[in-house]
């Protein structure tokens, strides 16, 4: 039996980097840890499926 596998969001970066000298990495979300990241991945995946025609 083949199990149905749902696709995943692997990475999310928010906003745009205006700085023309280096990449701005957001450490704000980092403070919430891995559980928050996993929950965010599931939520973004669900929203993406819902809003893509």
């Amino acid at each position, binding site marked *: 039996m083949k199990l149905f*596998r*749902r*696709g*995943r*969001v*692997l*990475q*999310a*970066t*928010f*906003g*745009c*980097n*205006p*700085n*023309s*000298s*280096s*990449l*701005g*990495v*957001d*450490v*704000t*979300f*980092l*403070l*919430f*840890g*891995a559980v*928050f*990241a*996993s929950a*965010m*991945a599931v939520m*973004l*995946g669900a*929203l*993406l*499926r*819902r*809003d*893509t*025609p």
Partner: protein
Amino acid sequence: MRVARVRAERFGGIVELERPRALLHVDQELMRELGEPESPLWGLPVEGPLSAPTEVHVVLSRRCAAGCKGCYVDATPQGAALSFEEACRILDELAEMGVFHVALGGGEALELDYLFAVAEHARARGITPNLTTSGLGLDQTSARKCAVFGQINVSVDGVGAAYEKARGFDGFRHAERALRFLRAVKPEVGVNCVVSRSSFDHVPDVARLVRKLRLNELELLRFKPVGRGARLDEELTPQQSRELFPMARRLVWRHRIRVKLDCSFAPMVFWHKPSKAAAAFFGVQGCVGGDVLAAVQPEGAFTGCSFTSQAAADARVPGAARAAWADGFHEFRDYVRDAPEPCASCDYLRLCRGGCRAVAGAHGAFAAPDPGCPRVQEHRARRPLPVIAT
């Protein structure tokens, strides 16, 4: 959630969201669920460079009247600049490659009379233009024109007298006025703050300013000893390097603001051993020159980042940037594979990528570990001193 564009990659693809503004890396399965066609890239090994940078830093000019003492591009009032036609041709090529964002800067990009036309051109080609400015000379009319940009950050390295001490001229009131004008036009306005040895203790004042003006981000940039900065003794002390990430955390909690760190601060973050899964998911990583990002210099050089001068191609030549991307930038891309100690045994190597290549290069060895990394400093302190024969 509104999808603007999708680009296939080896691992699946990158989805650009317009609202909220974000780039999502998704796997091949999710790409199929979203109705995207099969990509030939999906047959390649997952490990490998992106098909194109997601972001390119276009250093439009080395022209600026401010004369900041630590300017990393050594900008002067008569510095070199890309012409309008050259900038547009380069943007055309970047759009064809699939680049999502450009960060326009200099020099002082607002001194160029074609800046807004270049930004409009980027928009017309589907690229989001973003801008860093000192705010000098920005009035309400030009602030209104800045609506064309995605994110705009104004450089503020200190508040009041601390600004003058950091930059060498009294420009704080101009910067603050520019921030107020811009904030009246759009919410995506923030502050870039260079964190140096002497400005470190004043960073909380800048965070208070960000909260007071209701700006959307504070981006802390590491002082790098390049350009005119090479003559200054302003790199962070080992103690400051260790305190940087805890300070950023405090600013987030205390002021309820979004804090970003530039990629060169990665070793200072990972020394504190944050969650690797969270860091990977939110794109917290070290040097991504020649991988996630690239730069175009005012003389046309296509480089891995705007701090390096090693040109992979002349971006003004049609097709040259695309060709260079396909098989260039090995000095950046191969670091993780060839990393020396103490990077080789570091649990965070794949995220940190050895810190900042530009800083390592400024200290004499581009392929060496970042000398500002606390782990590297500890490693070097443990190493026995060489025996000198007498």
